[in-house]
């Protein structure tokens, strides 16, 4: 941890970066995102198992960009998001300094997106067996029962959009849900609107989501929306091969192969 603090200090002192995005103490025993602009504040940085928020979400936010060039504390899920943002041309290597944190809490510096990819090759996204089992269980239900199951699961959603705000890949300045000409999705918490919202959210993340679970962690109602994106990751793998961001490779749904196979088009 000392390593990280020293590095952050020196980056701010030398004015290499103007802000350090990291984890600090939150309320009660929680941690929160902190934005440090002065070297003497860097002692507030901490890193432990409670630091699950995906900080990459701040890299595309106006308020943060406004502060200047950032250095960002980046455990594996954050590294994946950074790489995905790079693939989507949302970040340049010169835009930021990455303070990678290995699973052993060691500081790793990356000088290129390629280096991140190389490192992540040893940490491929893997869907937990327990989630796979849940998804299989849902898929085994008769169609009406499955529909009823999801309508009930999605009913508590009150459209706070915390899931969207927490997702590093939901960076559009204007989201389809805010569009009211036409009103694609009813703004009220309505059974049909909730369903439409979650279909839209999942579809817009199809082939992009890096399975960080920030959306699920942010949801105040504990709605298992991560099951949707996890299931879509499985679908990507089944139909289009291994998933995960890769420099120079386009997103699943921004590319195609003339030989893509399906079995349902007549």
């Amino acid at each position: 941890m000392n390593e990280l603090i020293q590095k952050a200090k020196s980056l701010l002192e030398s004015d290499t970066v103007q802000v350090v995005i990291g984890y600090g103490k939150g309320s009660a025993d929680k941690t929160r995102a902190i934005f440090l602009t002065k070297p003497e504040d860097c002692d507030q940085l901490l890193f432990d198992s409670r630091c699950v928020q995906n900080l990459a979400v701040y890299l595309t936010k106006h308020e943060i960009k406004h502060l200047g060039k950032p250095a960002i504390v980046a455990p594996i899920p954050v590294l994946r998001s950074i790489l995905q943002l790079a693939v989507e041309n949302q970040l340049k290597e010169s835009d930021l300094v990455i303070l990678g944190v290995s699973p052993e809490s060691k500081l790793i510096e990356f000088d290129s997106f390629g280096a991140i990819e190389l490192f992540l090759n040893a940490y491929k996204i893997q869907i937990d067996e327990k989630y796979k089992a849940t998804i299989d269980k849902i898929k085994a239900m008769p169609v009406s029962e499955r529909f009823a199951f999801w309508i009930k699961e999605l009913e508590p959603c009150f459209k706070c959009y915390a899931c969207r705000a927490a997702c590093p890949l939901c960076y559009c300045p204007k989201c389809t849900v805010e569009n009211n000409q036409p009103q694609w999705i009813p703004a009220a918490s309505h059974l049909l609107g909730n369903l439409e919202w979650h279909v839209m959210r999942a579809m817009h993340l199809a082939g992009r989501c890096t399975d960080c679970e920030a959306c699920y962690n942010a949801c105040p109602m504990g709605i298992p929306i991560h099951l949707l994106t996890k299931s879509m990751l499985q679908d990507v793998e089944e139909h289009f091969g291994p998933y995960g961001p890769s420099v120079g490779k386009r997103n699943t749904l921004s590319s195609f192969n003339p030989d893509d196979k399906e079995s349902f088009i007549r």
Partner: protein
Amino acid sequence: MTEFEPKIVAFVCNWCTYAGADLTGTSRIKYAQNVKIIRFPCTGRIDFMLLLKAFGEGADGIIVSGCHPNDCHYTSGNFHARRRWIMFRGLLDLLGIDVRRIQYSWVSAAEGAKWADVVNTTVTAIRELGPYTDYAKVANYLEKEANV
């Protein structure tokens, strides 16, 4: 009791299926009247949200159709669309939205007879499945509550 007449919405591309459906007409081929055709510039333009809107407005079945692979007027619109349909279908299936009610097809401008067949078989299949009450209940649940 009168027989259930399925309401079908067809989202088709301008260059192939729409022209194909036109040929069905000019060839005087008779086919089921249950379908409302909506013309798009390309299958790549058929936003998945439109399919949800069709179900939300009371469609019992949907047809999505465009140019055969390699025949797209814009070269690759249908290839992109195909990938999106594969992902969309998987998501709908997980959510319990009845994917049997959505028929995808490639119908070229020369395939007037195939269009008639796609519509007829879809109508038959949806007639067997019955009205899409599961979705209608969710779409109209506020009205239902107001009526009791």
